[in-house]
């Protein structure tokens, strides 16, 4: 069972790599056609595809191709994904809840190497159990998942996991690897006029990018970061594992976890990986807070 799953993942990875390579050569082909005037043979410089009229869009493309997206660009990409996600599932109409989640999340984010990012946290209207991260510090969890939580430490753990994805730029890398290059081919073909169009092309359809699974190691890494950030913030470090154990008890056939289980390794596997990685490393850590008394209960 386990090895079958691994093969499946390996297969998916190799397919996307092949696609990416194909698209990259397609893109380079298009670039050559576009840049080299038929009359004279000039050396092609792929680093400068810029036509003066398309400046911001071209800058974004260049940054993505080169793998060095500026902070501003990262936030713009995140904003677009967040806005799309909110189009599918709006914020829960409970200002107190939203404010509370932002305070807890912001406090956890202050324990990271990106404390000054404009972090945003939101609880969205969905009975699914899931949480999402977009580049630039946009973090969401569903109302369904929030309901499953028992205390503030568990909330911090879940947010910490998502913060981990932002810190390690997992989604940005995913976009750069596959969809980004696909988008570039399309962009040059269609001559998109503005940055918004470029962005949407890059992201794909709507908020579909958040439903695309990251590789397993990225999820395990985010779990480890979630535990560490909770601990740094003064919370019970074992609250995230508790949430994982709880989610692991939901039947695999339950609709509320179908997307989560499709895009993440099963909680049992995640707990196993976490257990192996943590080992004795947190033995000396003093007990953290659960924050159960402060936990904001949904109305």
């Amino acid at each position, binding site marked *: 069972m386990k090895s079958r799953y691994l093969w499946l993942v390996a297969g998916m990875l190799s397919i996307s790599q092949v696609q990416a390579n194909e698209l990259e050569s397609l893109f380079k082909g298009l670039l050559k056609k576009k840049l080299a005037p038929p009359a004279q043979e000039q050396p092609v410089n792929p680093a400068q595809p810029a036509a003066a009229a398309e400046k911001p869009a071209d800058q974004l493309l260049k940054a993505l191709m080169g793998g060095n997206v500026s902070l501003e660009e990262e936030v713009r990409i995140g904003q677009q994904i*967040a*806005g799309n*996600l*909110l*189009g*599918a599932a*709006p*914020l829960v109409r409970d200002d107190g809840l*939203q*404010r509370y989640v*932002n305070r807890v999340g*912001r*406090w956890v984010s*202050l324990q*990271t*190497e990106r*404390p*000054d990012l404009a972090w*945003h946290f939101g609880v969205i209207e*969905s*009975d699914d159990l899931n949480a999402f991260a977009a580049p630039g510090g*946009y973090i969401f969890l*569903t109302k*369904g998942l929030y*309901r499953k939580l*028992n*205390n503030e430490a568990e909330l911090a753990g879940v947010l910490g996991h998502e913060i981990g994805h932002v*810190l*390690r730029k997992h989604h940005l890398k995913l976009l750069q690897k596959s969809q980004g290059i696909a988008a570039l081919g399309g962009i040059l073909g269609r001559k998109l006029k503005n940055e918004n169009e470029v962005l949407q092309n890059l992201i794909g359809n*709507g*908020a*579909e990018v958040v*439903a695309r699974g990251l590789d397993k*190691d990225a999820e395990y*890494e985010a779990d480890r970061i979630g*535990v*560490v950030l909770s601990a*740094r*913030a*003064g*919370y019970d470090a*074992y*609250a995230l*594992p508790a949430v994982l*154990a*709880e989610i692991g*008890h939901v039947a695999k056939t339950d609709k*509320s976890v179908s*997307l989560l289980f499709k895009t993440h390794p099963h909680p049992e596997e995640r*707990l*196993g*990986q976490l*257990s192996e*990685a*943590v*080992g004795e490393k947190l033995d000396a*850590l*003093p*007990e953290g*807070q659960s924050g159960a008394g402060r936990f904001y209960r949904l109305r």
Partner: protein
Amino acid sequence: MKLYFSGLLFACLLAAPVWAATGTMIKDDEMRTNASANSAAVGRVAKGASVDVLTRKGGWTQIRHAGATGWVRILSVRSSAESGGNVLGGIVQMGAERRDPSRVVAVAGLRGLNEEELRGARFNANELARLDQFSSSRVDAEQFARGAGLRSRDVAYINAARREQESRPSGNSSGIGFGDGNL
């Protein structure tokens, strides 16, 4: 209704020590006399062993296995699906949550979030603006934490157990110094 609810909860509390949750060892671990790595070992429990989970203290959980009782690291045990309560998260809260009448209401108007809906999603500028409105500043978050008695602690990032070279986080393997002196 509420009385009945409290009664149930009380019954759960009383029952807890007798009716222990069951769990499975997810790795080998030493069973110890106390919730500390420095306390004496009383035996080893192997991965896959079925154990009774009794209680929790910090990063440790008390288990009973093959007639012996002792403490192992909390991450060495996974509570079983049919345990009736999640010891890691706290039996009492879970018991209460399961009987929360609001959950029944929620089921009636179930709203999922599947790939199709995500793919078809249209940018919502108003919601994005609302999101912005709730964001918390550094000062605000620090004040919140201070009020709650939360203090920053130095804890280093943890690498993957195996294949460390591949998935080592770039450049940030040490967390020492982060968040220090925020309060």
